[in-house]
């Protein structure tokens, strides 16, 4: 069962809900290791994405993902704006001009998004960034497709993202504002990793529903 652009919209709509719910939590995390605006930045951006769905959104995956990416880029600001924005811009390029994505196409689009984040922020594993939640999630999704459907894959991805998020607590930040803290960043979860976990939670909930 291929994924439709309608589901992409549901995915982001759910992501928006989760971000607005968790805004304070994200801000608190960023206050501890950054400048305390991650909650505000993400909430501003996802609200704009949700609003953009109101007046009829593009029906093709590439156009839809690109408009999502551009909206994030132009409203989030800070470090996370270009990163999440690039994720969806590349997702769109990989998805191509279609209204339906096969599981493999969807997985490839996620991988393209991840590659975009790497290109943009040059994060390495264990730098204590959103990458530490995103990379395991994207790999888990692909693994899940080996012996399961997108729904199963999305569940694995969400679990992997949560695990990656939690693991950032033990790390010393080497990228972003938190890196100025050096050792003092240990013991705190990275805010971007936390918002990325919400992105994949939203995905599994969306695809999960559909299949239910």
């Amino acid at each position, binding site marked *: 069962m291929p994924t439709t652009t309608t589901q992409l919209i549901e995915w982001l709509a759910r992501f928006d809900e989760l971000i607005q719910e968790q805004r304070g939590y994200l801000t608190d995390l960023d206050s501890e290791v950054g*400048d*305390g*605006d991650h909650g*505000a*930045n993400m909430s501003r951006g996802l609200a704009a994405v949700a609003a953009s769905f109101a007046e009829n959104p593009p029906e093709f995956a590439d156009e839809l993902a690109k408009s999502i990416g*551009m909206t994030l*880029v*132009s*409203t*989030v*600001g*800070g*470090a*996370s*704006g*270009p*990163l999440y*924005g*690039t994720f969806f811009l590349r997702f769109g390029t990989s998805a191509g001009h279609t209204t339906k994505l096969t599981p493999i196409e969807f997985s490839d689009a996620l991988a393209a998004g991840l590659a975009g984040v790497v290109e*943009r*922020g040059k994060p390495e594993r264990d730098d204590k960034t959103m990458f530490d939640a995103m990379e395991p999630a994207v790999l888990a999704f692909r693994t899940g497709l080996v012996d399961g459907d997108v729904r199963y894959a999305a569940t694995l991805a969400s679990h992997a993202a949560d695990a990656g998020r939690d693991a950032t607590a033990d790390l*010393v930040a*080497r*990228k*972003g*504002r938190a*890196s*100025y*803290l*050096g050792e*003092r960043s240990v013991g705190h979860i990275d805010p971007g990793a936390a918002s990325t976990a919400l992105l994949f939670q939203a995905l599994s909930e969306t695809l999960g529903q559909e299949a239910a």
Partner: protein
Amino acid sequence: MKKLINAPEDVLAESLAGFAAAHREVRVDAATRVVYRADPKPHGTVALLSGGGSGHEPLHAGYVGFGMLDAAVAGQVFTSPTPDQIVAATNAIDTGAGVLHIVKNYTGDVMNFDMATELATGAVETVVVADDVAVENSTFTAGRRGTGLTVLLEKIVGAAAEQGRDLAEVAALAWLVATSGRSMGVALTSSTVPAAGRPTFDLPDDEMELGVGIHGEPGRRRVPLASAHEIAGMLVEPILADYNFGGAPAVVMLNGMGGTPLIELYLMFGEVKTLLEKAGVVVARTLVGNYVTSLDMAGCSVTVLRADDEILGLWDAPVNTPALRWGI
């Protein structure tokens, strides 16, 4: 929070409106939050663009004008501007000779300017300012932060652009300046971000934050409150330890963080100049005042730039902006 503001979310827009009302020599595009020169440069001259989070006034809008920037892009308080704003400004000021982006080294600023560069229509070169010696091992961090040196760079490179140098030459000079200066700051109090409503960090009455950033990020270490003389030592020492200014003439800035009065800044400058000259630095040009601030933070920073006759000449060249004006 005691501030002369209305709703916190309107601070940036309303302050820009007031800036526009105060300065006929600039034009403010409220929609994209970009400040332009009222009369643009002649065709074929390289244009300079800078920008970043707000709260560092007069940086950057106060430096838009003849001899410095062609435009400044304002982000929310302490949050970098977005690529669409930067692209709009870049395309608007490009006279055909290309645009130099002057970016302070913060992950958010760097990435947003990078994306803008990819989307800009004309030629764009970028210089990244990373002068804050408070950030020690830059290999395991996002690198040194861009602070006071930004002002000196905008002045010097701005003068070079007015001379009609091409984009490659302007960019090369910008990198030379960016790599020849160092800064170090101290905070006596925390700044208060309007949206947050409370000080970013708590600082006891008998302590100060040494090596502080300009967004209220923590500094190198928290130390007991000291005398101006001792503080001057704590600021000058790491700068001299990091770069060799010996012999050459230097441009020195004693910058206020926003909440410290001029009487104290001049006193600090006296201490700093004495220490620099003891160390053999030739203080050839000076700037004392609030040039790169952190909202209402009390404190100061020292910037030292190694110069030569060419750079001093560009420093002395006419400049006519709201915050820096001479020879005109």
